[in-house]
C-alpha cells in the first residue's frame, strides 16, 4: 500500500511566484523511512503541506493510503498523515501537556476514555510519560517537539512527516527527536518522511530524495546519493562531512568508505596505514 502518492502534481503559490512544482511524481510505501533533502526554498516544505491537504494542488492527484486528498476526504487524509512543523513554540494549542496532546483526538470526536488511552500511548511513544501534567512553556525545545509529535500520534496516523522539525533545536534536542523517530519506525512500524537539511540525519533513512526548484532531482539510498558529490553541489547542498573526508582520502590514494559510518571508516583507515 502506498502511504503517500503524488501523481503528476502541479502547484504554485500564485501567478507571480517564481516557485513552481510541475508534474511531480512521488510515492512513499507503507513502512518506509524516506528522507527529503534540499536547500531552503527547494520545495521540501510544500511537499509536506500538499501531502496532508493543507495546500491543494493546481493539477494532478495527491492521495494517502488510497484516499484522494480532496473535498470531504481531507479530514480522513489529515487523520492518516500527521505533520510536525519546525517551530516548537508555534504548534501547541494548550498550556498543559495532556491538554495539547488531546487536541487532535478531540477534533476528530474520539470518545473521552479513548482519548485518555491515546494520550498515554502517545506520551509513552515519545518518552514523555512523566510530563503529562507539566506546563509546556517550561519544557526544553526538544521536549516541546516531542509533545508536538505526541499530539500527532494521538490521531493514530499511518505516516508522520517531520518538516524540518529539528532545525531550531540544539544538538541534544536533535538527538532526542532522532531517537524518537527511530523508535517509532522500529516499534510502531510507522511510515516516516523526514524533511531536513542536516545531511547526517538522512543517513538513517531507507531512501533519500533530493529536491531542487520544486523537482525531485535525485533518489536512492543515502549512500548512493552521497556518493554523487558533484550533483549534490549543483543542487546547492554540501556533502556530509564524513563523506567529504572519505572522498578526499580516496583522492589521496587510500581506498576507504562508502559506508558513512565513523567506526567503519576508522577501521578502514587503520587497515590502509598499517
Amino acid at each position: 500500500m502506498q502511504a503517500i502518492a503524488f501523481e503528476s502534481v502541479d502547484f504554485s503559490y500564485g501567478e507571480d511566484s517564481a516557485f513552481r512544482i510541475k508534474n511531480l511524481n512521488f510515492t512513499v510505501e507503507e513502512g518506509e523511512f524516506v528522507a527529503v533533502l534540499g536547500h531552503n526554498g527547494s520545495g521540501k516544505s510544500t511537499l509536506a503541506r500538499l501531502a496532508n491537504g493543507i495546500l491543494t494542488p493546481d493539477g494532478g492527484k495527491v492521495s494517502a493510503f488510497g484516499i484522494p486528498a480532496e473535498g470531504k476526504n481531507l479530514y480522513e487524509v489529515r487523520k492518516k498523515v500527521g505533520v510536525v512543523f519546525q517551530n516548537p513554540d508555534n504548534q501547541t494549542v494548550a498550556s498543559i501537556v495532556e491538554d495539547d496532546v488531546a487536541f487532535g483526538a478531540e477534533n476528530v470526536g474520539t470518545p473521552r476514555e479513548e482519548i485518555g488511552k491515546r494520550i498515554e500511548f502517545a506520551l509513552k511513544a515519545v518518552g514523555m510519560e512523566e510530563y503529562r501534567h507539566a506546563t509546556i512553556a517550561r519544557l526544553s525545545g526538544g521536549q516541546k517537539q516531542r509533545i508536538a509529535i505526541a499530539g500527532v500520534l494521538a490521531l493514530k496516523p499511518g505516516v508522520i512527516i517531520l518538516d524540518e522539525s529539528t532545525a531550531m533545536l540544539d544538538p541534544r534536542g536533535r538527538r532526542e527527536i532522532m531517537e524518537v523517530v527511530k523508535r517509532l519506525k522500529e516499534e510502531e512500524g510507522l511510515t516516516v518522511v523526514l524533511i531536513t537539511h542536516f545531511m547526517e540525519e538522512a543517513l538513517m533513512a531507507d531512501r533519500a530524495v533530493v529536491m531542487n526548484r520544486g523537482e525531485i532531482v535525485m533518489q536512492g539510498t543515502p549512500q548512493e546519493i552521497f556518493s554523487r558529490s558533484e550533483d549534490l553541489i549543483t543542487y546547492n547542498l554540501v556533502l556530509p562531512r564524513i563523506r567529504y573526508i572519505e572522498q578526499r582520502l580516496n583522492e589521496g590514494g587510500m581506498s576507504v568508505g562508502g559506508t558513512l559510518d565513523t567506526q567503519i571508516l576508522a577501521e578502514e583507515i587503520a587497515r590502509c596505514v598499517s
Partner: protein
Amino acid sequence: MRIVAEHLSYTYNEGSPFAVRALDDVSLTIEEGEFYGILGHTGSGKSTFVQHLNGLIRVPSSLKKRKKKPKKGQPVPPETVLNVGEFDLTKRDTNFRALRKKVGMVFQYPEYQLFAETVKEDVAFGLKNFAEKGEKPSEEEIGRAVRDALQIVGLDYGEVAEKSPFDLSGGQKRRAAIAGVIVTKPEILVLDEPAAGLDPLGKREIMELLHTLHREWCKTVVIVSHDMDEISENCTRCAVFAEGKVVYDLPPKELFQKGEELTALGLDIPLTAKLVLALKERGITVDCDFTTEDFIQKVLALKGGGA
C-alpha cells in the same frame, strides 16, 4: 580591546522563589584579535555571559548607588571584575552607550529584529542612534557607511538599499541584519548562533562572512555555538560552559583531545575528534588540530609513512 572577567556571577529573579543561578564565579579572558568560540548546552550560562559584554545584563554593582558593605565577621566575597577594553562594567558611571558602539551584538535569528521601511534605513538605525549629540551624520556619511556595511556582508547596495527588508530572501535578511550591527564598525563582534536555521550552504557562507569581518572590520569575533564542527573549523580558542561555570578554556586543538570528558558532559565532539578517538582505539595516533583539512593531511601523511 581585551575582555577580562573575574568572579562574575549572575542570578535571574534574585530573591524570588523562581531564582536561577545562571553564572557562577566565572573567570575568563578573551584577548584582542581572537576568533573565540563559546560552547555549552542551552541554559549553561553562555548567553548570559555574552549579554554582559555590552551591558545588556548589568553587573549588579553597576546599578547601585552605594556599595553594600559586607557585614562584620562574614567572609568578603572575591571582587567581581568585568573589563571590556577601557570600560569597567562594574562601575555605575561607565558610559554604556559608548560601550555598545564598540561591542556589536548579533542575536539568534537577527532577521527578526528588522523593522524599517527600507534596508538602508534599517542598517542606518544603529548609526543614527550612536551618533553623539549635536553631531548628526550627514546623509552622505550615512549613505557611505551603509554602502560599506552592505558590501562587506555580501549584499549589493544598488539592488537592496531601497527595498523593504521583508522582501529579501531568508539568507539576505540575515546578512542585512548583521550589516545593521556592524555598520558602526565595532571592535568586538559577538554573535549568538549566527548560522542557526540556515541550510548547509547558507551556514558555510555565514562562517565565511565572519572570517571576512574578522580580517577586515572587527578585531575580535566571539561566537556562541552548539555546532562542534563549526567551532573546531573556525575558532582560535574556545570556552566550554556547564551549569554556569567555565569548565574548559583552551584552543580547539587541546580541547578536542578531551573527547571523552566532553562526551561525559553530554556535549558532542567534532567528527574529526570522533575519528581520532576511534583511530586511537586501534593504536593509531593522529596529531591534528581537528580541522577537517589538517586531519586529512595528517592521515594521508601516515599512509605515506606506512607505505
